[in-house]
């Protein structure tokens, strides 16, 4: 239960960190909050020869809200997301999910970028990013690129990050006005990883018809319900509409069996949670229009 030896690097600028990533590539691991990486190292499932500690890089730690969206430095701790007043007001889905990322001791250290780059299948933040239409900025010494959430998560614990790249920024676009939201999950205990989960945002026009709908399920990667979302547009919220859309969304869900839950259970639970998420998001959207949401 002790990690293997490694060489420790503590850059204080992003440029320095990218230089180290370029030099050591696959032999190196970046260390953010360490809440996923260090357990893997303690178990010796990972033995990186070089550890590049990002915690001293101040320029990766920021929350910048603007009218058209929110830019978040990858090193921003999960507790900061939970406490941000602007996040609570404009992206409450992110606040709700960040508060479920494990107990307070973990959220105090764990970072947004670290959770996304680890890409654990049942982590909360990846499906929230997919639902909010986030994009990730990936940097390496020789350049930068921007990848949408749907292209960032490749499979369980695999992302579009190249060995010499760092995830540096997450950008979340502004939501439509009066957008309702919901995050639903089943986990064995509070703060545990989700066995099944669903996230949704829904906006209505003044006549009560759906003008914006996004739905994502927890699978081996976050599964945006591209087939189900168009079924909702222009329709009025109803339980049967949402039940049908949820069933459609869960059709393509890849899930695994393990000792906690069978794949069949996970698919079924995701479908039920998707229906609940749509219903709650639409209900909140309606309440926001009436100015009645507390």
């Amino acid at each position, binding site marked *: 239960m002790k990690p293997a*030896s490694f060489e420790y690097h*503590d850059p204080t600028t992003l440029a320095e960190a990218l230089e180290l990533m370029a030099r050591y590539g696959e032999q190196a691991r970046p260390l953010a909050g360490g809440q996923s990486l*260090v357990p893997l190292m*303690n178990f010796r499932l990972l033995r990186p020869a070089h550890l590049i500690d990002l915690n001293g890089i101040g320029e990766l730690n920021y929350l910048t809200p603007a009218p058209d969206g929110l830019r978040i430095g990858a090193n921003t701790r999960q507790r900061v997301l939970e406490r941000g007043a602007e996040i609570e007001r404009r992206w409450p889905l992110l606040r709700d999910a960040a508060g479920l990322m494990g*107990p307070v001791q*973990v959220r*105090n250290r764990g970072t947004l970028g670290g959770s996304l780059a680890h890409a654990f299948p049942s982590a909360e933040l990846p499906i929230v990013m997919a639902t909010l239409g986030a994009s990730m900025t990936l940097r390496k010494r020789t350049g930068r690129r921007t990848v949408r959430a749907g292209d960032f998560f490749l499979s369980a614990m695999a992302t579009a990050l190249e060995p010499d790249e760092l995830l540096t920024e997450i950008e979340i676009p502004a939501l439509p006005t009066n957008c309702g939201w919901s995050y639903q999950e089943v986990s064995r205990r509070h703060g545990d990883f989700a066995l099944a989960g669903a996230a949704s945002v829904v906006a209505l026009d003044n006549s009560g018809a759906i003008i914006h709908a996004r739905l994502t399920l927890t699978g081996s990667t976050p599964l945006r319900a591209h087939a189900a979302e168009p079924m909702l547009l222009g329709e009025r919220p109803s339980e049967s509409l949402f039940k049908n859309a949820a069933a459609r969304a869960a059709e393509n869900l890849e899930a695994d069996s393990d000792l906690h839950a069978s794949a069949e259970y996970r698919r079924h639970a995701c479908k039920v949670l998707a229906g609940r998420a749509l219903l709650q998001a639409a209900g909140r959207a309606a309440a926001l229009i009436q100015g009645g949401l507390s």
Partner: protein
Amino acid sequence: MSTRQICVTVNGRQYSGAVEPRRLLTDFLRDDLGLTGTHVGCEHGVCGACTVVFNGEPVRACLLFAVQANGASIKTIEGLAPNPDELHPLQEKFWQLHGLQCGFCTPGILLTAEALLKEIPHPSQDQIREWISGNLCRCTGYLNIISAIEEAAKVLRANNP
């Protein structure tokens, strides 16, 4: 084996030492500094026994390397009581209300509860449960722990009106 020189403030006292980068903060505190009140349970971030307050926030010391604590200010359970003859109100209430049996999880829970009461002086039972959800106790069934935290909160509110 290369080592790094680090300087850390623990419970208000400065310590320095040379550590291998792979040395966990738990082992540095216990074996190098002799502060064995920080307990080591699972060593992979599940049980919460190793919780310490790191720059003001409770964290798991088994998921930090000692090198990362260079320049940091840490509070361990040895730093909770105001002096050797007096208990912190949390310790007093855990003792009075049987908030512990074997005591293995207690240091981590006390430090987590102290941070909770600083942030939320009047927590609900649900908030207490949420905050201590990262600390496993296999003896008490938690009910006495929750009562002890509630009672300590009353004392602290009365002391700092």
